[in-house]
């Protein structure tokens, strides 16, 4: 027990010291803020490790010019969403956070994000990126990068020419004489409707119907004949059919098969390119399996502004006048090369054929729906695809999924 007390005292003492350390700068700045009216306010930005350096540069320039303090807090990207929703209402949240656009619906429903107004600067960003960050007609974030999946092909085995259709791709894959003509990640038995979405839209079966302005409605669009046709195609290429699509493949296996030349075609995103060092890659738009254009999901990342920010002016100033600049966007691109949402920069980096390929694919794409219901959609959707690939009755499984989904959305 005595030992415990020793530890307790130690913990308390060190906590007290730490508290002393952490509180001293804030009291200092508080005093100087009252004194000479400079350097008082502080904005807190949550970021993940990859972007921290790039934001630091923009923050340094901002600190110098405005006299404010910018505090960067590094977090895991996966934790940002839940932490932001939990912390902002308590007043402990940041002023700005990095985030993905598909969180938007949940953030709006939680009431934790503020709208932003880019003014004339809006024209400098890719349209699809702004659309993705728009929810019910209001812009909620400064977009900075796009990402999407595309067809990756092994140039040495099948050349650089883009196949127009699924059949043509399989044909060329078979001619290459590799172990498999094509490989696609299904996230093993979980199912991966995200990667598969390009093929699904080529059957004309979007997950939700889009209205004229491009906003998603909550009306499920993948039911009916088009959806059934996709399900049948999935079944025909699953374990009960040709076997080109298999739920044994997860992300690592997929990359391994492609990288070792055992499969000349795959669907992957730019994040996987660094895992494929051994092959010469050509990036092309996804071929159509159902006759229509294959439109993969486009994901957009950007910076959200907290609705409870005490320094909203300062935070907006930082977002609009320091991060929405070519210099800052370039620094972000160099820190973590994703397709820039800043048009001038996107055109510039498109000289890299791989980036150009993903950019071309994203121009076919549609933003991933950001409505909060999307969370439950994934669970139903992935599970149904996985079951169909494993040989379940395609039409019945698919229609059951649609029924469950509609019941969930209605309730």
């Amino acid at each position, binding site marked *: *027990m005595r030992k415990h*007390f020793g530890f*307790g*005292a130690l913990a*308390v003492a060190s*906590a*007290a010291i730490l*508290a002393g350390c952490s509180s001293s700068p804030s009291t200092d700045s508080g005093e100087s*803020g009252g004194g000479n*009216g*400079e*350097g*008082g*306010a502080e904005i807190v930005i949550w970021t993940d490790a990859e972007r921290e350096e790039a934001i630091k540069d923009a923050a340094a320039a901002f600190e110098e010019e405005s*006299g404010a303090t910018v505090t960067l807090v590094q977090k895991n990207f*996966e934790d940002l969403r*839940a932490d932001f929703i939990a912390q*902002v*209402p308590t*007043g402990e949240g940041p002023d700005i956070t990095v985030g993905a656009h598909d969180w938007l*619906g*949940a953030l*709006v*429903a*939680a*009431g*934790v994000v*503020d*709208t932003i*107004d880019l*003014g*004339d600067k809006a024209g400098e960003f890719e349209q699809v990126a702004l659309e993705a960050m728009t929810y019910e007609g209001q812009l909620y974030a400064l977009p900075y990068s796009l990402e999407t999946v595309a067809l990756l092909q092994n140039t040495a085995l099948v050349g650089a020419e883009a196949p127009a259709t699924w059949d043509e791709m399989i044909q060329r894959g078979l001619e290459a004489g590799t172990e498999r003509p094509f490989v696609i990640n299904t996230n*093993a*038995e*979980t199912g991966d409707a995200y990667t598969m979405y390009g093929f699904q839209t080529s059957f004309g079966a979007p997950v939700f119907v889009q209205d004229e302005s491009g906003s998603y409605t909550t009306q499920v669009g993948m039911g009916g004949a088009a959806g059934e046709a996709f399900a049948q195609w999935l079944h025909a290429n699953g374990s009960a059919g040709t076997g080109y699509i298999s739920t*044994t493949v997860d992300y690592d296996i997929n990359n391994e098969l492609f990288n070792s030349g055992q499969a000349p075609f795959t669907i992957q995103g730019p994040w996987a390119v660094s895992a494929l060092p051994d092959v010469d890659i050509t990036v092309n738009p996804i071929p159509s399996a159902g006759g229509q254009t294959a439109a993969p999901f486009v994901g957009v990342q950007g910076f959200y502004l907290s*609705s*409870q920010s*005490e*320094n*909203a*002016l*300062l935070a907006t*100033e930082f977002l*609009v*006048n320091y991060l929405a600049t070519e210099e800052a966007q370039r620094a972000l691109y160099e820190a973590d090369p994703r397709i820039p949402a800043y048009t001038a920069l996107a055109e510039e980096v498109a000289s890299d054929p791989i980036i150009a390929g993903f950019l071309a694919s994203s121009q076919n794409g549609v933003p991933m729906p950001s409505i*909060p219901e999307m*969370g*439950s959609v*994934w*669970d139903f959707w*992935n*599970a*149904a695809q*996985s*079951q169909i690939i*494993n040989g379940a009755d395609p039409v019945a499984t698919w229609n*059951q999924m649609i029924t469950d989904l509609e019941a*969930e959305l209605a*309730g």
Partner: protein
Amino acid sequence: MTAQMERPQATETPGGESHARKWRGPGWGFLVKLALLALVNAFGMTAILSAWRAESWVILGAAVALLVIVDVVYFVKRALPLKYLVPGLAFLLIFQIFSFLYTGYVAFTNYGTGHAGSQAQAVEAALIQGERRVADSPDYPLAVVQRGGELGFAINDDGDVRVGSATEPLTEVDGAEVGQNGAPTEVPGWTVVPRAQVLADTALQEQVVGLRVPVSDDPEDGSIRTREGSTGVVYSSSLTWDPEAQTITDTETGTVYEATERGSFVSEDGERLAAGWYVNVGFDNFVRAVTDPGLAAPLLQVTLWTFAFAILSVVMPFALGLLFAIIYNDPRVRGRKILRTLFLLPYAFPAFMSALLWRGMMNSEFGVINDLFFFGADINWLQDPWLARFAALWVNLWLSYPYWMLVCTGALQALSGDTLEAAKIDGAGRWRQFRSIILPLLLVSTAPLAISSFAFSFNNFVIIYMLTGGGPNFAGSSEGLGATDLLITAIYQISGVAGGAADYGLASALSILVFLVIGAVSALAFRQTRKLEEYQ
């Protein structure tokens, strides 16, 4: 030198005197105590002050009470046992009881997606979401101005400077001067607040952000607001909040959204505003867990499987561990120490890595298990519900039998040889010895461990999450629950931390149910082990 001279003298004081009698007033110990308590008090005061600043009165009260208790206990001579117990009790209170009570509190609310903050915050969010930029509004260069205590905006409208405040619509002023960037620098009758000052002052910033200057007497024309303090844009708000009636009205369509008891603004025809707030919902979460058809059936399956998994995860590894312990405890086995060490290896690996490794090995197409042991057959270890359950049990057996082998080896070696010899003399065979002597005596020392192992397996998140992720999913489960989900992984899934719709209220309610189950099972089991102790 003097210290060395004195020390022998001190120890030479007449021996046999007790420490208590030897006490001659405050010594070093007292000073150390004083220093430590000063630190504790400093820390406590910091906590109290920050609680005061954050206006969290419950924490403030608790911190004051704790600090007073600690001081009383350590400065009063009589409370000797408490001097030892207080630190432990304080940490129990802070880390266990507080989080338990908080979970209990959340379980009775609808905290989750769409119900994240207070009602005031939901109103604020609705107003933010309902305020839109007027489509053809230009960006006006803007300056923040002040007159007495009143804030206003001065904008430059193509060379004409117009100024106004929250109560006074924009009016044109003569004789104003405009700076390089177009923003007014001098406005007669008003003091221009330098932008640097606005940005540096948090309180002023909030006022500026909240300020709306009407463009004209007609509210339909909208009002000027600024987002970063240097440009003004005309906005119009479609929603108005009436705190008296607790309603939000859409001025464009005339729809009235009323605040409901469920923490949302809902219109008459059932339309709901996105942001809500969390409210007390009584036992709804508990009721939903057992009556909601989309939830109850999967949860029942998950519960049954959790019990099966927890029980089998104790019984099977115990049996296997005991078997190995008996075999390798026999002096006739050669190289026992090396073999025992080898058998312990699975226990030495981190469980999550082992689970990932097994996940790879059980892949039906690329995994080594099918390749090596089943002649390359396509056995879907992780995709068939029953095989996946078997796989989870198997991997857990592999991970945890070394623990039981270790425990049983220790217990076997501690068995008294006399008892066994007496049994032998009485003519008991090996099986009889095992059944009537070894096993009961072994259970006395291992039963409490078996209970804690049950509780651990009941909540064995890592292995399920890493091996199967809870899958394969039940068809049509809205929460994404699957055949190998334990209650704890189901709670994780439902809480929405991993993405998807969050329902912390339901997740907390389920955690409490899990706590009750484990608490009840442990209490019953500990009562049973008391009976075992009668053997001794």
